[in-house]
């Protein structure tokens, strides 16, 4: 363990490094250069005068916001000097191995699909095709290519089987001898929080705090609740006008007002729509037009099978193509893999690399809810990319991270075992392991299962607490809510039927009752 002073220096060095690569740095330089012409800047006190000027002009606040974003969200902790880079990404060797072999399987499947169908992984589009695509860019949904030969590379249930088979070779799994018997499916002993610790970690969700999503319903008569709601909304307006990213994250824990959600999320994620971002998006669009990837067909298929069939999201079909096709070519996403043990499969065309995150069945549902918030493709893209790089990637890769899917599955099972042991035992006995039902909800962070307004309230808290843990808690809360019905069922199919429709559920009351009541 390094002492605090050393850790601080290393953290500061990391933030400076990130600042140098950010757009904010060039803005700071530009401002500093411009202020040199001002009469109050003297040569003998140049450093101090420029610093004062930047502080007075409000630029310093941008830097503070940037620092807060770096420190609060997703800055990886400094690793031990002796630790190799893969250890810093993922300390457990058997998890690294499992992720690597899972990736090999996906790649093998992709390659065999290539050979079977005779479609190349990547090819340059001929000019007439490029022209046609440029004309049809805003209405790619009207295209009806023949996708019958393509099938999704994997579905969530295939991934679940991999997670179930995940074992620590040093773990004693002899029946009856373990300190914690695993009657659930996950065999890994990760540290997950129980309800008392969750109460301490999520105090803003308690029954005494104003929650947007409960207290702002129209049928509540005017009174103290509606006054608190007004205060919440006013605070959010202030936070947006001050562009205060850390405050936005704090206040989003109690929910975002619908009208301000888009701006608050963009603030928390530091997702800007500056000319550079628009240009980056246009470059990606050009890449889509010039080259055709095999993965594109998988994206088309996924959108047609999931989002287009959904009552809430079918209108956004064109947006989904515009975002996902660009995403599969964005090599800037690669840098987030420096703190994820996963390695994306790469394909090459004439020496140029194309990064592809291989979409699984339902991948497009990560983007679909965001279409309600942002209507500009470049802004939508920016926000989606940040959300993927911070949260969603953890839902389909194997790691020991507390927000990773393995931890979420284990936490779900443990919460259910501790608080509804009879229900868990009953379901296990009839062959309906609860995780087999809840997994598909968690892997998509409930997108496509909850109604959109409820889903956005859930994702407010994911952003506010910078963790996906709340997704596991909600899954357990749903089981708790339908516990009576579930105790009556006698098969997996009937258990699934009881839990088939979540569209009428209200997220915040469920979470509050489960955690605090």
């Amino acid at each position, binding site marked *: 363990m390094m002492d605090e002073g050393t850790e601080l220096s290393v953290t500061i060095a990391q933030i400076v490094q990130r600042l140098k690569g950010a757009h904010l740095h060039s803005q700071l330089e530009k401002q500093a250069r411009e202020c040199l012409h001002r009469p109050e800047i003297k*040569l003998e006190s140049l450093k101090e005068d420029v610093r004062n000027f930047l502080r007075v002009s409000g630029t310093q606040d941008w830097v503070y916001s940037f620092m807060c974003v770096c420190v609060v969200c997703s800055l990886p902790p400094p690793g031990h000097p002796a630790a190799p880079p893969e250890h810093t990404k993922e300390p457990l060797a058997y998890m690294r191995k499992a992720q690597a072999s899972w990736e090999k399987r996906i790649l093998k499947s992709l390659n065999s699909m290539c050979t079977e169908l005779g479609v190349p992984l990547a090819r340059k589009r001929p000019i007439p095709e490029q022209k046609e695509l440029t004309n049809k860019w805003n209405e790619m949904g009207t295209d009806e290519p023949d996708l019958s030969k393509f099938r999704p590379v994997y579905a969530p249930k295939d991934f679940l089987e991999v997670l179930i088979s995940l074992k620590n070779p040093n773990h004693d799994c002899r029946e009856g001898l373990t300190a914690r018997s695993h009657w659930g499916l996950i065999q890994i002993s990760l540290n997950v929080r129980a309800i008392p610790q969750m109460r301490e970690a999520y105090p803003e969700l308690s029954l005494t705090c104003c929650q947007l999503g409960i207290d702002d319903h129209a049928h509540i008569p005017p009174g103290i609740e509606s006054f608190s709601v007004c205060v919440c909304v006013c605070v959010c307006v202030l936070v947006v006008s001050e562009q205060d990213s850390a405050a936005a994250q704090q206040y989003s824990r109690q929910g975002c007002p619908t009208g301000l959600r888009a701006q608050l999320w963009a603030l928390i994620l530091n997702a800007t729509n500056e000319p550079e971002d628009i240009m980056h998006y246009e470059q990606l669009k050009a890449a889509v037009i010039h080259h055709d990837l095999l993965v594109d067909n998988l994206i088309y298929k996924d959108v047609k099978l999931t989002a287009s069939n959904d009552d809430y999201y079918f209108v956004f079909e064109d947006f989904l193509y515009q975002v996902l096709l660009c995403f599969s070519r964005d090599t800037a996403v690669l840098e987030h893999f420096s703190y994820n043990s996963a390695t994306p499969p790469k394909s090459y065309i004439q020496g140029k690399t194309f990064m592809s995150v291989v979409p699984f069945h339902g991948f497009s549902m990560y983007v679909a809810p965001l279409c309600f918030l942002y209507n500009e493709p470049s802004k939508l893209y920016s926000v989606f990319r940040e959300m993927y790089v911070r949260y969603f990637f953890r839902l389909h890769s194997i790691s020991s991270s507390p927000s990773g899917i393995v931890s979420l599955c284990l936490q779900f099972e443990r919460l259910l075992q501790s608080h509804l042991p009879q229900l868990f035992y009953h379901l296990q006995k009839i062959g309906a392991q609860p995780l087999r039902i809840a997994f598909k909800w968690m892997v998509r962070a409930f997108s496509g299962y909850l109604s959109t307004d409820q889903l956005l309230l859930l994702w407010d808290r994911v952003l506010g607490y910078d963790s996906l843990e709340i997704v596991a808690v909600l899954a357990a809360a749903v089981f708790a809510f339908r516990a009576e019905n579930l105790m009556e069922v006698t098969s997996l199919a009937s258990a699934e039927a009881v839990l088939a429709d979540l569209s009428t559920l209200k997220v915040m009351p469920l979470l509050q009752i489960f955690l605090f009541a």
Partner: protein
Amino acid sequence: MTGNPVDCTVKSTVALQIGDVVSDSFRPGVYITDVVFGEPVNIQEISFKNSYTAFLTVRVLRKEAGSEDGSTKWVTCVRNHCLMANPHTEEGSQDYFSIYRQQMLTQPDNVTTVRLIQRQPSSVWLNFNIEEIKIYPLVHEDSERDVPSWLSTITPVEEPLDLNGLPDPDEVSSSIQQMWALTEIMQSSQTSASIGRFDVDGSYDINLLSYT
């Protein structure tokens, strides 16, 4: 990590167990690993990779200072240092750790042997150990700071200039700037009028003031 690790021999791990190690089916909860040096060392840092050890106690065999016959004494440097916050779960189980001189209860000077006592009270794990043990000696120039050398490049110290009686460059440059500004003004506002000598009727006598 300051400098290079000391050459040492890591002896094979011994289990602390009542009864026969081979025939008994109970697994030991304590292992001892000794690290022996060729000559006495002043220790700065002990670094290692954990493999499911929950607690670590470090004892050193010190050569007593001022003793001619080389008598030695065992002292405890670190007692029950926690490596895994929860012995039943994975957190910290495969992490790299360093124990510094400053964290130790007694000064690890003139050390001939280091004894690492590893404990794992949980029955969940089949084996536990610590690996890649490296011991770094005290390097005197850096004895004031425990900042590793690779960090010192991040915060460079500016050395004061040796002026040798010359004026401070910052002062000179600031006054030069004003002079330069003046010359710029002069150049930009040149008139064709000649700057005549300020004499009055050919005389520099300033007894007489002129108002013209």
